[in-house]
């Protein structure tokens, strides 16, 4: 059976989601996941459950050859068990690495049922739990894609330049493990992925189709984990940024927490290293996640959803869209007390 990109569509559940968080996303984009849950519950009226007992999927350890695959499978089987115990069947995964890993494990079990039986034994032995495979398993960006028009109906802001009235030029970056291993599990497949393009178009922007669009962000677990190998990682990010530069993009949106982090943080590192900046007029290009993009469209306060934790300042983007914000409150905590400013974070070695 051969497909081409329009054939890659997937079933996305309507309601009743069991949500699993991402290690990287909750650390580097601390507002994003609460924002996602809030949009689902309060803007779209969906039922979302988050289990306090949920753990990492071990993705970083697994991809760095630290955690053996049987351990990873058992940990993931435990997440399935938590979902079963709470009476949910539709799994929503925040992290693209996790999504890829969950998909890979289900595929391995499908081809080797004895392996699944073995893991069932391990889980039962270690925790006394049992699990069912999810009825529907999607990435969080798939959910936003499914409800993109509902979000557009409630939109306070559109992805349009406030002054010129032209659509914002948005670079969409899809995490490699979203569709490259299993193109049929990604909307639009892996060559012409539609999952973020769909959001961008529905909310008024336009996608930039630049030559290195499919290039890995450079995350490459075992590359960035060792300081001496980080050069490989940043070199790939540079390839991408150089390729998108002539299009003068207004922002980058990524559905993978690692990609969003690297495309954001490495812009700072590249400027510090050799003075390169890639946005129009010697600015850096703001990077947001899919949840943050939805949050901006729906009119959330930028500082409430954590945009002050980004390395590349987002104020230029907010001004372009015409979003009001209080510069004084950028680094204020809930009591209004300043918790730091940009000057304090320049000495990173």
């Amino acid at each position, binding site marked *: *059976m*051969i*497909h*081409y*990109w329009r054939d890659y569509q997937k079933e996305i559940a309507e309601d009743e989601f069991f949500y699993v968080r991402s290690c990287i996303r909750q650390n580097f984009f601390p507002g994003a996941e609460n924002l996602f849950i809030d949009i689902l519950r309060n803007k779209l009226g969906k039922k979302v459950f988050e289990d306090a007992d949920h753990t990492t999927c071990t993705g970083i350890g697994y991809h760095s050859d630290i955690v053996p695959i049987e351990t990873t499978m058992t940990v993931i089987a435990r997440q399935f068990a938590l979902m079963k115990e709470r009476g949910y069947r539709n799994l929503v995964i925040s992290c693209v690495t996790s999504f890829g890993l969950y998909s890979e494990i289900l595929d391995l079990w499908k081809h080797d049922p004895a392996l699944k039986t073995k893991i069932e034994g391990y889980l039962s032995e270690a925790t006394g739990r049992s699990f069912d495979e999810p009825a529907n398993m999607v990435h969080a960006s798939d959910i936003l894609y499914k409800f993109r028009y509902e979000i557009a109906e409630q939109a306070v802001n559109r992805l349009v330049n406030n002054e010129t009235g032209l659509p914002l030029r948005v670079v969409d970056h899809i995490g490699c493990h979203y569709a490259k291993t299993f193109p049929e599990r990604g909307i639009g*497949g*892996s*060559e*012409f992925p539609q999952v973020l393009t769909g959001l961008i178009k529905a909310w008024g922007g336009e996608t930039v*189709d*630049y*030559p*290195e*669009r*499919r290039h890995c962000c450079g995350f490459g677990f075992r590359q960035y984990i060792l300081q001496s190998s980080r050069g490989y990682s940043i070199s790939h990010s540079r390839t991408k940024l150089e390729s998108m530069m*002539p*299009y003068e993009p207004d922002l980058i949106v990524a559905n993978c927490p690692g990609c969003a982090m690297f495309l954001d943080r490495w812009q700072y590192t590249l400027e510090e290293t050799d003075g390169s900046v890639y946005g129009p007029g010697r600015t850096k290009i703001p990077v947001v996640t899919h949840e943050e993009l939805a949050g901006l469209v729906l009119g959330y306060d930028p500082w409430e959803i954590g945009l002050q934790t980004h390395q590349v300042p987002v104020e230029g983007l907010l001004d372009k869209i015409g979003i009001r914000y209080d510069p004084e409150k950028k680094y204020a905590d809930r009591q209004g007390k300043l918790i730091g400013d940009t000057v304090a974070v320049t000495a990173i070695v």
Partner: protein
Amino acid sequence: MMPREKPYIKSNRQEIPAFAGMTSDAQPVTGNRQPVTVRVAVVGGGPAGMAAVGALAAMHIGVDWYEKEDRVGGKLNNYHQLFPDRVPASEAFGQLVKGTYHNHIDRHLGKAITSVGVNAGRISLNGKDHKIGEADAVILATGFDFFDARHKEEFGYGIYKHVITSADLETVFADGDKLLNVNGSAPASVAFVHCVGSRDEQVGVSYCSRLCCITGIKQAIQIRREYRETRVYNFYIDMRAFGRGYEELYREAQENHGVRFIRGRVSEASEDEQGRIRVKAEDTLMSRPIKLTVDWLVLLIGMSPSCSAVLSGKGEREKSFTNAENPLTGSAVKGQPGVFLAGCCAGPMSIPESVASGRSAAVQAAEYLNKKNGNSE
């Protein structure tokens, strides 16, 4: 081939020559009107079908000739020049079609046969929902379909305007159109990608389509002849120049036309900010990745089967080339007495091979009928 608009190509399409669109009274009919006792159906009006009907008629066998389009010639009608001698396709068509103006041949244009049935020595030919005809034997010459290049998503066919297929390029040449760059001037560079839809497990194609290498060589030369300053690159996995004069044409392309052959498969194509096509590949002889920007990327598409659907009534997805019972020595189909294969429905073939295959099937059908009617010596 998917229909494509060509707003970017200046059209200069000539009127179709009179002989290209054959009607039943277009040419004087030859052959004595002798009573014929047996009738053979030939399904398909391309080179193999034309060769088969001509040979059958010459043996005084009555022929019912079915073609789904309203003219015969098949894909030959859309070709410009044929490798390796650059004979105009219209000339080859003229030679083949001459033999088909014969008293024994009844032409049924616009008739698509979708299945055949074999029952007690009689063959029934069926359309989508009704029976179209009957025969004592049938030669299937249903040819091939071009591989749908959209399935090789990484090349962006159907998405990027400047990615075309070899079939598209052939119609550009045939129509006398210009292949201009985004600024309306001669292209600075053109690249050909070999093996698109051939030898590729990603799209479920295990076989080699054989003719794409030489098509790429021929078309590369054509571009160099028309645009002397254009750099032309061919990205290949293996060069398979197997036929008469093919290797010589390969060398001519290198030595006389300066066509660059790079061993390495293009892995990805994307559009740059000017609408030109950026390709990535590895030069496997230098063991280094390369990047190249071209004005046109031409995908040398392979041949996909279009015939066994007729035989078995299977759907599109299950298509495959049909195997003869003894593929080394004959073209009879196993378990279907009276059914013979000709041309590309049995596998990728060049035009001379298709013609030979069509004539061969005609002889085998005649032998079969002789034996069946007790006339064998």
